[in-house]
């Protein structure tokens, strides 16, 4: 195998893809929250050893909510939307008037639908930029320790190369007090394809 080289130029392109994709996703979240402003950090792109991926979330043993979706089609991406328990409860009660934000069936379905809308907006943007077709799988929700969620996602999605490209963006809202991160893990093959389309090989 040729050593997988991702130079700063390519990381920049990934960041820009993440930026536009997540920007789109955040616009959708804002619409869901009746127009409340959603702030986002500039996406970061990392090339990490597989073993260090779980540590990319602060507090591997901290309980969090993870919404996991695979984008499949011309290329494959794995997307994980991570929220603190408090933020997830705030999100549920913001969208379900009168709810205490419990993780019951309806609460989980709110998180599922938000994950679905965020991911789809992201994939729609990627699709427009790259002309690739990408469809999300129905989202899956887990409430557990961050490390367990992310390692399970790696195993389920078979993202197990020795080095992993990880795109991470954090978002937050002031009024509804929601803080979360969106992690995107493209398959190795996905990157090659995207780079080729964007004329970067």
């Amino acid at each position: 195998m040729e050593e997988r080289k991702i130079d700063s130029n390519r990381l920049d392109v990934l960041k820009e893809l993440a930026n536009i994709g997540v920007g789109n996703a955040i616009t959708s979240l804002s619409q869901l929250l009746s127009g409340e402003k959603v702030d986002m950090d500039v996406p970061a792109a990392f090339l990490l050893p597989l073993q260090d991926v779980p540590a990319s979330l602060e507090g591997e043993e901290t309980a969090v909510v993870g919404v996991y979706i695979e984008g499949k089609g011309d290329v494959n991406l794995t997307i994980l939307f991570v929220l603190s328990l408090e933020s997830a409860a705030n999100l549920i009660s913001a969208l379900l008037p009168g709810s205490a934000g419990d993780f019951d069936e309806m609460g989980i379905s709110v998180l599922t639908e938000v994950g679905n809308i965020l991911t789809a907006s992201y994939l729609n943007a990627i699709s427009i930029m790259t002309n690739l077709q990408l469809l999300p799988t129905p989202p899956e929700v887990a409430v557990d320790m961050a490390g367990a969620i992310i390692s399970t996602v790696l195993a389920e999605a078979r993202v197990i190369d020795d080095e992993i490209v990880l795109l991470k963006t954090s978002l937050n809202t002031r009024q509804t007090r929601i803080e979360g991160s969106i992690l995107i893990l493209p398959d190795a093959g996905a990157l090659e394809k995207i780079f080729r389309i964007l004329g970067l090989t």
Partner: protein
Amino acid sequence: MISMIVDNTEIVKVKIADMAVLKDNGLIITVGLGSCVGICLYDEISRVGGLAHILLAESQQFKSRDGAVNKAKFADTAIPLLLEKMEKFGGKRSRLRSKIAGGSQLFVFKKTNISVGEKNVETVRRTLKKLNIPVVGEDVGGSHGRTMRLYIDSGRVTISTVGKGEIEI
């Protein structure tokens, strides 16, 4: 893995697709076992203990492009490698006992016949059996993540989960 000394005790943290072996004293810990499985091997006579954190069951399907395999990722290759390392520390195969944890199904809506976690547990058991290492303690399956600790002085293994405290297996 990351190693540090806290109160004169060596604490080694095993990451995913990773393993560690200690002798006489210390603590090996691995955090966040979801569908992954943690395998502890212990020889109580030589007081050699090891812990591996595997991601997936079988290495064969996942050869990387140059044909090399990171053995610590897979149950069927990680356990023999852990055994090898333990023998170097003076562990004896015939005296080894194992304790296993993890293999849960975290995502509730997954509609597959057999989950990654179940497959992992099954392969871990099969591999241990092939090596004649008995499983003397376990906490597997379910739908929650686990943290596993192996105390080298005694061979004690504890499992902690979110909101449910700690148990010994």
